[in-house]
């Protein structure tokens, strides 16, 4: 029963990971840019929601406006920062996204300070009991909202004309250019979508765990997720996110206490610390070594 409880908590957090990882994969597929700043967008989205709620708006309305604002932020970063860097070395592009992350963090730190803030209630408080498992509305809402969004997004990507153009751009930029797709605009759209997804994910996460600048660390957790799923697979990102969320919850709730019991018996080490935070990375290294293209990714061949 306890296990199931943990799994559900894991799925809730994992579905938020999925939202954020989706954004990273989207941008990567479209433009080959690895966006280390994704966690920054998540954090910013949460802070926008917080600020709007503080200003007296209903939290849900605040969230909606915040997500739209995030879209604008995404477009701006792509146009102002990434577009001039088309020909820059890969390391420089990675670095510029890290620069964006640092700047966003610093801005939030400057305005809202380093302390944990009470995030406004997005959903009514309350608990459902189902056969001995307790679920807060918050968790249920997070799971539902993220899964609906993920599904909607995947459907959009798969079935709409815009989604088709996005896939074209991602598949082969030159061919897309040749058939008259405005690639540059498609990339901007990818950034907008991905910033919106991240902003929403950030707000959901804040409603589960509270809000502070450290929320931005989630962007780094998303990397194990996408590597697990395969850098280029949107479905992989979603599955990877959920798997990782569950794994973390199980580690925290069961594996850590078990290991600590053993360690205390035989060694002088008293605690293994935040094991659940390292697990994703250990898993990542393992996956990369065994199956570098990820679970859902495809192998790319090269020509001499």
């Amino acid at each position, binding site marked *: 029963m306890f296990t199931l409880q943990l799994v559900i908590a894991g799925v809730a957090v994992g579905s938020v990971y999925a939202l954020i990882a989706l954004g990273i994969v989207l941008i990567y597929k479209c433009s*080959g840019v*690895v966006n280390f700043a994704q966690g920054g967008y998540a954090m910013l989205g949460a802070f926008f929601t917080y600020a709007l709620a503080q200003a007296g708006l209903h939290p849900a309305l605040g969230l909606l406006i915040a997500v739209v604002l995030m879209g604008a932020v995404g477009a701006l970063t792509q146009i102002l*920062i990434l577009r*001039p*860097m088309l*020909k*820059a*070395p*890969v*390391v*420089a*592009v*990675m*670095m*510029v996204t*890290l*620069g*964006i*992350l*640092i*700047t*966003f*963090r*610093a*801005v939030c*730190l*400057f305005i809202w300070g380093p302390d944990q803030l009470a995030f406004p209630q997005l959903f009514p408080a309350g608990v459902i009991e189902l056969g001995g498992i307790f679920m807060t509305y918050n968790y249920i809402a997070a799971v539902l909202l993220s899964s609906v969004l993920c599904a909607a997004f995947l459907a959009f990507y798969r079935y709409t004309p815009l989604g088709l153009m996005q896939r074209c751009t991602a598949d082969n930029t030159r061919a897309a250019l040749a058939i008259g797709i405005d690639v540059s605009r498609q990339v901007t759209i990818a950034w907008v979508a991905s910033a919106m997804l991240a902003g929403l994910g950030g707000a959901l996460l804040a409603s589960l765990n509270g809000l502070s600048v450290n929320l931005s660390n989630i962007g*780094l957790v998303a*990397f*194990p997720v996408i*590597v697990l799923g395969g*850098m*280029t697979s949107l479905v992989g990102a979603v599955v990877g996110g959920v798997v990782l969320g569950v794994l973390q919850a199980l580690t925290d709730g069961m594996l850590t206490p078990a290991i600590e019991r053993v360690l205390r018996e035989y060694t*002088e*080490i008293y605690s*293994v*610390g*935040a*094991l659940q*935070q*390292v697990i994703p*990375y*250990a898993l*990542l*290294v393992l996956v*990369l*070594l065994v199956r*570098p*293209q990820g679970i859902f990714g495809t*192998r*790319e061949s*090269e020509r*001499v």
Partner: protein
Amino acid sequence: MTLRQILILLAVAACILLLLPGLGRYSAYIVYVVAIASIGALALNLLIGYCGQISFAHGGLLGVGAYAAGNFGNAGQDMVVALAGAGFVTALISVMIGLPALRLRGLYFAIATLAAQFILEYLFRLLEPLTHGVSGLLIEPAPFLGFGVSTDRGYAAVSIILLVLSLIGVSRLLRTDLGRRFILIRDSEMVARGMGINVARTKFWAFAISGFLAGIAGGLLAFTTRIAAPEAFEIALSVDYVAMIIVGGLGSLPGAVIGAFFVVLLPEVVQRLGEYFNAATQTSAIREMIFGLLIILFMIYEPRGLNSLASRLWRRWRGAGTKPAKTPSGAMDLRPSSEPAE
């Protein structure tokens, strides 16, 4: 590096060493902080700028060096022995981090190093017998070749000497078969393999040598700050070092020093300004903001670094527009060709 350049370097170093006794404590502090960061940046530049292996685990590696040197020093070893020991230990860890690089390339490898960084951070907190966990390992002063150097000036002298040795060492290394293979692998791993180069072995040496230097830099950090604590070696430090070598110039030896100078001095300057304007409470946020914005601006306008900018200005000043523009040595080009991989 030609003989002439080595002589100039030695002369500059000698001047700094001669001036040291006249420097105030703060200036001496700046000298050694920059010199240590330069050694660390040099190590990372060897790996990223010359061998093309993007790593975000450098902060953790400096930490390994710091803890190793601290433990050796506390066991009563001379600083030279402790630093050398730290170098070897860190080289070992660096090679382990490099293992995925045998199968992964570019981006995927960079992400694997990110994982390595977090695992190292975790181990620093976990392995209390070696690291004293969150409280940090206190480090006793150690003599350098028998001389007591536990003053700011002493540290400055030691760091300058080691920096000069590292600079000469790396520049010579780049003129050997091994060094040329580094550059070839950076430019195209596939071509290098086709030419019959043992890519795995070459990368092994890149990680080992870079790790050795990182260990020395980390050890110096430990001896000068007298403490090695986990929060000093987090991912932020890795980012600082990557920033240094990009700001200075990828694949450029002077670039490593220029970048270290820039990234280390920036917070000092902002700190001063903050004190001046009585805004000390917000300085850390402002400092981060300026750092972030500068990185962004830098990457957009000068992705090849200050060193390339400097040589361009130098050429313009000399009016040498007649010469065919030879790409500044070291300007590297990691276009998206280094994509996913295998």
